[in-house]
C-alpha cells in the first residue's frame, strides 16, 4: 500500500479513463452516470460506455455477472469512451479479475477489501488472494473496507435495513473518486433530492455515504494523487448529456414537429433498441402514438398502416427483428410509402451477442429482402448525432416516398456524450408529397420529376380513393400489371428514385489530409475510435493520413470516387468481416481496398488501429 501523500497542487491532466465495475446489482451504471454527468456540468467533454451482462441479476460474485461503466472525460475533445484505464474501481474480486487487463501499468485500482472473502475469491476463480499474492505489484492499489465504512457511516441513520446499507457502498466509491478528480458532490446530492423525494431517509443515507467517501479520500492519506481536468474547449451553446437511443427518439420528435405530421411508432421489445420505445411512449403530450405490437412483424406492419393513413411512421428493432421485418419492408418499398426503420445493431448472427456491439447488419439492411428492393440506408456515428440522422431519415423518407433504414449500434445507442441542443426552429425544412385534390387523369403513381417520389394520397381525402399493394403496378395507372416491360421499367424507377437521393445529401469530406498516402475509411458507430487514432497519428507527424467517415451508405455521396482517387492506399475499417468494403468494391473499380476488421462484440482498440495504419505508411 502506498501511503505517500500529497499536499501538493492537483496534477493537471488532459483526459482520463475511469471504469467502475461490480456485481450487476451493485449500482455501477448509476455510479458511472453520476460521475460523467457531474463532469459534463463541470465543462469536460465526455464519452461513456456501459457494459453489462444480459442477465438482469446474474449470480452474485460470478465472473459473468460483472457490470461495468466506463467514462472518458477530458479538457480536450473526447471522441470515444477510451481504451486503457487510468483508474479502475472494483467492488469485488470478479470485477477485478475481468477488468484488470485494461488498466495501464502503474495506474490506480481501488478495491473494496470487504468483498474479498474466500467465497467471492472462489467465485472469481482466484486461487490466491490477489491483494496478498503480489499479482498487483505493477499497480497502485488502494484498499478500502468500503462495506464496513459504509455501515459505520450509516449506523445512526434509522429505518434502513441491512440490504439498503450495503447497497449504498457504491456512493462511497463515488465520493472517493469525486475527491480524486476535484469534482463537487453537489450535482449528485441534487439528484438524490429529486429522485428520492418521498424517501427522506434514503436521501440522508446516500448523501452521508457519498460525503463519507469524499472525506475519507481527503483526510486519510491513502490516495496517491489528486488530479484535475480543466473544462474542454467546446462550441458555445446549451448542452445536455444524451444517450444515443434518446437522441434517436428526439430526432424523430423533432422531425414530426417540423413536418407537421403525427408520429407513429410500431415496435416490439428487443435489446438494445427498446430504449427508443421507452422514450417515445413518454411523449403523448406531443401526440406520439407508440404501439407495442405482438411481434416484430406487427411492429412494422402497423407502421406501414399508419404511413398509409398519413403519419410519420417509424419502426425500431435490432438485427434479428430486422430479419423478421424483411417482407413487410419490401411491401413498403413496393407501395412507395415513407417509413423509417431503425436498426440498433448488436452482435450477430441469430441471437448472437445481444448486449454487445457490431456492424454486421449492413448487408442485411442493403439487401435483406426478396426481389430487387432498394431502400435508403443511413448510419449514425456518435450518441449525439443519432439525433441528426434520425431527423434526416425521416426527412428523406417523407421527401422521397421510400423506406429508410437507419443503422445505429449498441455502442453509440447506450453510450452518452454532450449534445449541443438543437432547436427545431433551426433544423432544415421537411417537405412532403401529400396531395389534397385530384387533377384530371390523376394516378396514385404520378411522380415528382426531380425526385421520382410518387404522390401521397391519404385516406379521408375525397376523390383520391385508390388501391395499392405488393403486386407489381402499372407505371401509369397503378393497377396490377404483369406486363414484362412494365415490370422492368418499375424495377429501374425504384432503383433510380433511391439513386437520385445523391442530389439531396452532402458530399463526403476528408479530415486531417485532403490527399496523401493513406485514407482511413469508416462508417457508423466507429467514428470516435477511428477519428482519435488518426488524430493521434496526425499529432505525431503523420500528415499523409486522411480520414473519412460515411453516414450515407445507400446511395453513397456523389464525390466518393473522386475522394478515393486522391489517396494511394485506402483501408476500410469495420466491426464485421468486411461488408462496407464489399459495397465499395461493387461500386468502384481500380482501387485496392484494404480491410481492417474486428468481430468480437467490442469497439476498435486504439493501439491496434495505430499499429495497422503505421504499417501501411511505412
Amino acid at each position: 500500500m502506498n501511503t505517500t501523500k500529497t499536499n501538493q497542487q492537483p496534477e493537471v491532466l488532459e483526459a482520463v479513463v475511469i471504469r467502475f465495475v461490480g456485481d450487476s446489482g451493485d449500482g455501477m451504471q448509476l455510479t458511472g452516470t453520476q460521475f460523467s454527468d457531474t463532469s459534463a456540468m463541470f465543462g469536460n467533454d465526455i464519452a461513456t460506455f456501459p457494459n453489462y451482462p444480459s442477465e438482469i441479476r446474474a449470480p452474485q460474485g460470478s465472473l459473468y455477472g460483472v457490470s461495468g461503466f466506463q467514462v472518458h472525460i477530458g479538457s480536450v475533445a473526447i471522441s470515444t469512451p477510451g481504451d486503457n484505464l487510468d483508474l479502475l474501481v472494483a467492488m469485488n474480486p470478479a470485477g477485478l479479475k475481468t477488468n484488470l487487463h485494461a488498466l495501464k501499468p502503474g495506474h490506480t485500482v481501488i478495491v473494496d477489501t470487504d468483498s474479498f472473502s474466500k467465497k467471492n475469491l472462489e467465485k472469481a476463480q482466484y486461487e490466491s488472494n490477489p491483494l496478498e499474492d503480489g499479482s498487483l505489484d505493477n499497480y497502485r492499489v488502494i484498499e478500502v473496507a468500503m462495506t464496513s465504512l459504509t455501515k459505520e457511516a450509516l449506523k445512526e441513520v434509522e429505518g434502513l435495513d441491512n440490504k439498503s446499507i450495503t447497497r449504498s457502498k457504491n456512493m462511497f466509491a463515488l465520493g472517493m473518486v469525486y475527491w480524486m478528480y476535484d469534482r463537487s458532490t453537489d450535482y449528485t446530492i441534487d439528484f438524490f433530492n429529486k429522485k428520492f423525494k418521498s424517501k427522506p431517509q434514503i436521501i440522508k443515507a446516500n448523501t452521508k455515504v457519498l460525503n463519507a467517501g469524499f472525506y475519507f479520500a481527503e483526510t486519510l492519506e491513502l490516495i496517491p494523487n489528486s488530479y484535475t481536468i480543466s473544462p474542454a474547449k467546446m462550441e458555445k451553446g446549451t448542452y445536455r448529456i444524451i444517450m444515443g437511443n434518446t437522441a434517436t427518439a428526439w430526432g424523430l420528435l423533432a422531425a414530426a414537429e417540423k413536418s407537421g405530421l403525427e408520429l407513429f411508432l410500431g415496435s416490439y421489445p428487443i435489446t438494445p433498441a427498446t430504449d427508443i420505445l421507452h422514450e417515445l411512449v413518454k411523449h403523448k403530450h406531443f401526440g406520439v402514438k407508440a404501439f407495442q405490437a405482438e411481434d416484430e412483424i406487427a411492429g412494422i406492419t402497423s407502421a406501414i398502416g399508419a404511413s398509409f393513413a398519413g403519419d410519420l411512421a417509424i419502426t425500431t428493432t435490432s438485427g434479428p427483428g430486422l430479419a423478421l421485418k424483411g417482407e413487410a419492408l419490401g411491401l413498403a418499398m413496393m407501395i412507395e410509402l415513407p417509413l423509417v426503420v431503425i436498426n440498433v445493431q448488436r452482435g450477430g448472427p441469430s441471437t448472437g451477442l445481444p448486449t454487445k456491439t457490431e456492424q454486421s447488419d449492413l448487408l442485411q439492411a442493403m439487401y435483406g429482402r426478396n426481389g430487387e428492393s432498394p431502400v435508403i440506408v443511413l448510419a449514425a456515428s456518435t450518441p449525439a448525432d443519432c439525433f441528426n440522422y434520425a431527423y434526416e431519415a425521416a426527412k428523406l423518407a417523407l421527401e422521397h416516398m421510400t423506406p429508410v433504414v437507419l443503422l445505429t449500434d449498441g455502442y453509440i445507442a447506450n453510450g452518452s456524450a454532450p449534445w449541443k441542443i438543437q432547436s427545431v426552429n433551426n433544423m432544415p425544412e421537411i417537405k412532403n408529397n401529400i396531395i389534397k385534390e385530384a387533377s384530371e387523369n390523376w394516378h396514385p403513381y404520378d411522380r415528382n420529376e426531380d425526385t421520382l417520389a410518387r404522390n401521397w394520397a391519404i385516406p379521408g381525402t375525397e376523390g383520391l380513393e385508390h388501391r395499392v399493394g405488393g403486386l407489381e403496378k402499372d407505371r401509369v395507372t397503378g393497377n396490377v400489371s404483369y406486363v414484362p416491360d412494365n415490370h422492368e421499367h418499375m424495377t429501374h424507377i425504384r432503383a433510380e428514385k433511391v439513386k437520385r437521393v445523391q442530389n439531396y445529401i452532402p458530399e463526403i469530406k476528408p479530415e486531417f489530409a485532403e490527399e496523401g498516402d493513406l485514407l482511413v475509411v469508416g462508417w457508423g458507430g466507429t467514428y470516435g475510435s477511428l477519428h482519435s487514432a488518426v488524430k493521434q497519428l496526425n499529432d505525431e507527424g503523420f500528415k499523409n493520413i486522411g480520414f473519412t467517415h460515411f453516414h450515407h451508405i445507400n446511395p453513397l455521396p456523389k464525390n466518393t470516387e473522386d475522394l478515393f482517387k486522391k489517396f494511394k492506399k485506402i483501408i476500410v475499417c469495420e466491426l464485421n468481416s468486411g461488408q462496407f468494403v464489399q459495397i465499395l468494391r461493387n461500386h468502384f473499380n481500380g482501387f485496392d481496398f484494404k480491410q481492417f476488421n474486428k468481430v468480437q462484440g467490442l469497439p476498435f482498440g486504439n493501439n491496434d488501429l495505430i499499429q495497422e495504419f503505421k504499417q501501411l505508411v511505412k
Partner: protein
Amino acid sequence: METAVKKYTFKDFTSDQEVRWCPGCDDYVILRSMQKALPEMGVKKEDVVFISGIGCSSRFPYYMNTYGMHSIHGRAPGIASGVKLANPDLSVWIITGDGDSMAIGGNHFIHLLRRNIDLNLIMFNNEIYGLTKGQFSPTSLVGQKTKSSPYGNTQPPFSPGELALGAQARFFARIGGNTPKEMTHLFVEAEKFKGTSLIEVLQNCVIFNDGCFTQYTDKAVRADKQIFLEHGKPMIFGKESNKGLVLNGLKLEVVTIGENGVTQEDLLVHNAKEQDPTLHQMLVRLDYPIATGIIRSFDDVTLEEREDALTKQVKANSKFKKTDDLFFAGETYEVK
C-alpha cells in the same frame, strides 16, 4: 363541422377493375353484399379503407372503389391497426381467409381481437387454400383429401368462432356465403358496432372444396339446419319455425314446440350483449343446427378510446408543448 354524407349506391363502390374470381364463387356474393351495405352505413366513401392479406379473398380491395391495400400474407391486422390508430375517423375493414388469418397470420388475429380496436374483419372461410390450388388449411377437417393431404388430413381444425371468443372477441357473427340479404345486414351491424367485429362467412370454393358447407347452407335444408340468431329473440328455427334451443344441464338441446309440453316460452332468448361468453361459446360449437347471425356483440371500451383518454390526460398535465420545451428542460449546462 360534419359535412352531410352523400347518397351512394352500390355503383359508387364498384371499381373499374375486372373481377377475377372463378365463376360461381361465393366471393362475388360477398363483394356485392358489401357494395350494397356501404351506402346504408352512412360513411363517406373517402373514409373507407379495405386492407387485405394474401389469398383469393384478398383480391377484394381492388374491386372496391375506396382506399385499399392488398398487403402481404397474414399481416392485414397489423396494417389495419396502424391505419385506424393513425386516423380513428376512418372505417377500416380487414379482408382475410382461413389460412391468411389463422395460419400465417394467427398471432396477429388473436392480438387484434384482444385489443378491441374499432374495425371490422371479414373472414372468408372455405376450409382450403384456394390461390395456391388446394392444400388443407387450419379449418380443413380431419380426413379431408387435398393436394397436400392425398391420404386425408391428419391435423385437427380450428373453429374460428371458438378461437375468436377465446381471444376475447367482442363481436362475432357467422353467415352462409349464399345469403346476401342477411350478409348485407350483418356488414351494416358490424360497422355500427364499436370495437373489433369479426364476421365468418361460410364460403364455398367451387374448384377445390366444392360443397363444403352445402349440408348447412343449401336452400333446401337451410331453414332446418341453421338457426339465425337475433338479439332479444327466442332461439327458434326450422321450416315450420317449430324447433328451438333449450339448456339441458351444460348442453344446448334441440326441442320441438308442441312436443312433450314444450312451448315457445321454454326456449332460450338470445342475449348477444352478455359479457359472459359461455353461452356464445356453446352456440359457436353447435353443429345441429349451426348458429348464424350475430352470436356475440358485447359493448366494451376500445383501444383507441383508452389511448385517447390517456393522451388527453397527459397533454393536460404536461409542461411540454413543443419539442424545445423538452430538449431544454432538466439538466442542461452552458458552454461559454
